[in-house]
């Protein structure tokens, strides 16, 4: 008992404050893309050709990067000799509308907070059931990290629960394999109305790397009505946390 208390003192207080202007992400962190159409060379599609998930498109207005498909690998950054694409250290890349995930220029992403009634219901206490539907355990690891003492989503009233009956919504990861589709839909069905859907990671949003494989649906696309899209492969825990807090109107 005494040793346990001593260890408690030694381990210290580790919860990271949030929101903060700079959460100290590493220099190499790959976050929100910044696209500079002025640097694009006519007829060049080097970035489009290397993109493993067809997330990029170059139109007359310049490059467009669909964060719903992007795995933030940075292959396009390396392929662009002109430096028209950079990945900033901005971790806030969640959005509440699918079309809002298409990045152009240097534009922060938009999240519309829930309406007043929903905020009254879940704004201070949000319980989520997580369903991994083909997730590689990358998104799952990062969703799990929200429960550790550093990110500590509980302090904002956000918790993951075991039963969908206890949940206000579902956080889906993975491209929704054919083998998990029914289980996901049953889980969603089991949640009482009103309920939220959060799609976390490129796979859950669009199928990601597995898009159009016969073994998967393209994420929750066309299966569930999504309230929050959290891009990434996987999204950083702060990306998920920030998205949830904005959705709840807490930031």
């Amino acid at each position, binding site marked *: 008992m005494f040793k346990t208390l001593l260890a408690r003192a030694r381990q210290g207080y580790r919860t990271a404050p949030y929101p903060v202007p700079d959460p100290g992400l590493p220099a*190499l962190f790959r976050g929100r893309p910044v696209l500079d159409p002025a640097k694009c060379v006519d007829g060049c599609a080097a970035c489009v050709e290397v993109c493993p998930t067809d997330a990029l498109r170059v139109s007359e207005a310049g490059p467009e990067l669909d964060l719903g498909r992007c795995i933030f690998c940075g292959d396009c950054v390396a392929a662009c000799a002109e430096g028209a694409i950079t990945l900033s250290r901005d971790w806030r890349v969640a959005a509440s509308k699918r079309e809002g995930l298409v990045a152009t220029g240097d534009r922060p992403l938009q999240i519309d907070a829930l309406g007043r009634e929903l905020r009254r219901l879940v704004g201070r206490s949000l319980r989520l059931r997580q369903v991994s539907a083909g997730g590689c355990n990358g998104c799952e*690891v990062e969703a799990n990290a929200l429960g550790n003492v*550093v990110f500590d989503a509980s302090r904002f009233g956000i918790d993951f629960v075991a039963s969908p009956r206890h949940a206000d919504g579902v956080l889906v990861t993975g491209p929704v394999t054919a*083998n998990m589709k029914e289980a996901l839909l049953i889980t969603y069905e089991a949640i009482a109305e009103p309920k939220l859907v959060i799609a976390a990671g490129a796979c859950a949003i669009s199928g990601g790397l597995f898009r159009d494989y016969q*073994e*998967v649906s393209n994420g929750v696309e066309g299966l569930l009505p999504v309230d929050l899209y959290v891009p990434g492969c996987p999204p950083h825990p702060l990306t998920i946390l920030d998205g949830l807090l904005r959705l709840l109107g807490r930031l």
Partner: protein
Amino acid sequence: MDFARTHNAVPIPADAVPFVEIEVFRHDVLQAIAAGGRLLLLTGLSQKNGETRLLAAIADDVQGEIALSSTIVSGAYPALTMDFPAAHHFEREIHEQWGVDPQGHPWLKPVRFPPTGPTIGKADFFRVAGAEIHEVAVGPVHAGIIEPGHFRFNCHGERVIHLEISLGYQHRGIERALQGGPHRGTLHLAETIAGDTTVGHTTAYCQILEGLSGAACSPRARSRRALALELERIANHIGDLGALAGDVGFLPAAAYCGRLRGDALNMTAMFCGSRLGRGWVRPGGIALDPSAETLREFKRRMQDAERDMRNAVGLLWKSSSVRGRFEHIGILTRQAAADLGVVGPAARASGIDRDARRDFPAPLYSERLPAIVVGDAGDVFARAQQRWREIENSIAFIGQALDEPTDGPARSALGGLAPNAVIASIVEGWRGEILHLALTDPAGRFAQYKIVDPSFRNWFALATAMRGQAIMNFPLCNKSFNLSYCGHDL
């Protein structure tokens, strides 16, 4: 015995692999096993006119050799499983993927329920008969943030007589997608075979490319890759120790280890920007040589983390309430581990001296090897302690590797891939031995790409360890193995 022999990540011409009659094949494989060999892989390779070519890869762990042989079967062949249980999951896979019937196999159930097969969940589950027997079915959606799987317990009261584990819910078709590659997505697919083993699987994949193109990584790149792999081991082992503490309700260690796992993930992100090691290991080496300043900062963080890990994990060993819940629970006997071909810390905790870092050191550990420990009791306590001792050794290894002067570019250029070749790549990931095997076509593209995650070998060990246990011990036993669902389902 007629085998083609090669080494880790060294290709041989595909036509050097002998083709023998099925009787000879069975005899050779069983004899090689009896002589101390270990089944690395048994798989279908190709199909033509209703005939299927089967390939066996046998490891000689002492010599560090891989022996290959193949045969042709049409429709059916006498199963190896009855003579040699470690073949059981491979033969189920052959049955599912190639429609070949390994006759006499006691347990020919689907492995992954691919789109061509029966609907998942509609399986013929094993049932224990008896008036007082009851069944508990759990999953695919089960407690917590965890990948899906179905667990069916046949119990007498609280006692589990048999646990059947039915997987496939995570099946994404990765092996199929790798065929015809490499293409622009292949490297990223390798990174998502099992997200918590990004470095392990990506290294196995890159070794395939490097072997096939005849390129070698510089000593510095190899040293950094080994660092990456050991850091991944530390992150997962410390996280699991915390989760084990959580499963017995010992929250201080659960909280500290959860944070420390995060610290290890954050250290990973210092090298590559991603907490899970995405974008770190690249064909020909690593993406970026870390600056001296990054390495200094890493060393400092590692020292702090080591001190806190020692403190947090020390609580586990000193708490009688924890020991009481860890000891004599979920025993995997040495014999069972050997029979099932179990790998990784789960095997070593049961007294099996098997570690690919030592047995197949090249290309990663030729110069320096982490100390390798072997336990004996095979219970949850042994597996927990095994994890901790491996953490200690990995930290020591990283310290030495950083002090060692190394040179060479972070990344060497690769040439074209050898056509018509077979290559096997072995990496000791944190869960155990990862095997990738590729067969190239005349154009140097993947005609076949096989992945064997350690979980593929170890899931049945969990079912075995649960026999006779109280059902409440399942979460604890499960976490002590912490196997991958997607690594198995692919």
